């Protein structure tokens, strides 16, 4: 079981449902693992509980069932080992850009000298191309620059796992493309383990090694694990010409448009599915190899569950 660096086992989140005896289940039976140095994206429709999964991994939220194990230790509460990049940047607006980063570096290494903290922080500001604006307040930066600060802050603490909650969701398409490439570049240098939420299929293919697909909520499940077998280093302009690109893309879009709902309906009607199970693992798919047969394959596997 614990051959993965991060292991998510039978994770579920339920909320008390007013006016009904049964709790409202957002998602359940989430089982997946992440290897060291892997970049994993998770895609699903709004309300399937992606953000909740991320918050549980971060230790900011508690699961109703199941466990998260990182480095053979159960995740309880937030930790500097798991850095988070929030969708709305979450910079401290009364601190300058640089001070936002030193804040994190100081928290990570309390015994460092001032010079050490400053040098380390500047290094990561330069990494995201923000030297020159270090004394500006976040309110004086554009959305893209703010998100760069937020990314620099997360990378600067060198966490074992980096969690990103739709980091580019609030950015315009052009800025988004630029920052995606920057993130890709930083990732190639650091091989940081990343778990990221996105709504953008192209973004997921560009960045990740593996994409987890979630069915619709309530009673959402992590249904598939899609390998992105496109060699690195990748870049935005070349990747779309790779033969596997559209196979993967079509598979993802088909899942999101059609099967995310169908799978959810079939799971909901299946009453034996209610019990917590550690055995249900997402179907591993590689659209580049499997081609068209995946669809039937998945459905038969899902039916077996």
């Amino acid at each position: 079981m614990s051959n993965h660096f991060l292991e998510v086992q039978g994770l579920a989140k339920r909320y008390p449902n007013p006016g009904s005896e049964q709790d409202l289940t957002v998602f359940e039976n989430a089982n997946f693992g992440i290897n060291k140095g892997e970049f994993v994206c998770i895609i699903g429709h709004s309300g399937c509980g992606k953000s909740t999964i991320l918050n549980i991994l971060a230790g900011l939220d508690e699961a109703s069932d199941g466990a998260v194990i990182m480095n053979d230790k159960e995740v309880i509460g937030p930790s500097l080992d798991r850095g988070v990049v929030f969708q709305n940047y979450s910079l401290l607006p009364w601190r300058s850009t640089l001070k936002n980063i030193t804040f994190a570096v100081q928290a990570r290494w309390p015994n460092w000298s001032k010079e050490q903290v400053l040098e380390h922080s500047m290094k990561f500001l330069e990494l995201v191309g923000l030297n020159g604006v270090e004394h500006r307040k976040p309110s004086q930066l554009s959305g893209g620059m703010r998100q760069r600060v937020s990314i620099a802050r997360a990378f600067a603490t060198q966490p074992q796992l980096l969690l990103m909650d739709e980091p580019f969701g609030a950015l315009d398409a052009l800025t988004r493309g630029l920052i995606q490439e920057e993130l890709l570049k930083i990732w190639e240098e650091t091989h940081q383990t990343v778990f990221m939420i996105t709504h953008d299929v192209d973004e997921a293919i560009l960045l990740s090694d593996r994409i987890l697909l979630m069915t619709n909520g309530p009673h959402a499940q992590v249904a598939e694990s899609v390998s992105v077998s496109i060699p690195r280093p990748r870049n935005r302009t070349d990747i779309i010409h790779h033969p596997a690109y559209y196979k993967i893309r079509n598979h993802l879009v088909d899942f999101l448009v059609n099967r995310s709902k169908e799978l959810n309906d079939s799971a909901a009607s299946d009453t034996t599915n209610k019990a917590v199970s550690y055995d249900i693992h997402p179907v591993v798919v590689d659209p580049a190899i499997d081609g068209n047969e995946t669809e039937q394959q998945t459905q038969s596997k899902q039916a077996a569950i």
Partner: protein
Amino acid sequence: MIASQRFKATVLSVVMLLIFLGIWEGLNIAPTDTAPKSEYELLMGGASQEARVPPPSAVIKRAFEELSNPFYDAGPNDKGIGIQLGYSLYRVLTGFFFAALVALPIGFLVGMSPLMHKALDPFIQVLRPISPLAWMPLALFIIQDSEASAIFVIFICSIWPMLINTAFGVANVRQDWINVARTHELGSFKTALQVILPAAAPTILTGMRISIGIAWLVIVAAEMLVGGTGIGYYVWNEWNNLDLISVIFSILMIGIVGMMLDLALGRISRLVEYEE
């Protein structure tokens, strides 16, 4: 554009002031008696029996005299305006300081802990609407010192806006920033100091600004009661002296000092403000 509007506003203010002073001055010219004075009037020095509000020219003249020598001290009933204002300011700032010392920590506690909020709320709701002067007899009895009682009254009236605003500011710090503190493993003390305090500071300062305004309102009334020194006592003393010129002058001074207190806190709050 903005500069010209500011200029226009200044001109308009001056014009309004001049019209107001002109009407005031015009209405208050003592009528010249045309009828021959009676024997009694002659005996009394021929003074008009009709008391009138003194005209602004007299007030300006008095202001000039008082302000050219504000710190003279010629006995308990004759001190310069500067000394009187100094006493009042000392009381307000002392009471305000102790109020901040109590209100800020309790405000933090109430803001951070929903349990403490629920537990303390009834007390706050009952104590807050009490007129600070109503505490005066009790304060005089317990403290047995009129000076300290006046400071206590300022203390009790300054507490509430600071406490309520601190609690509100602390309770409404954005969850995102708290999450940043949590993911960076900040302890509760560091979180309070590095995240909650700067985030809530503008709200806290607003509470302090309201408090000092109220304290300045209350000190005048409190000093009328306790007597001895202070601007409130000065107003009442001049009324007893039937010196309305000094009464009007001191009313103006109360307004100006109050405005300066507010400006000072406005300056401080600009230091802690931030733009999201």
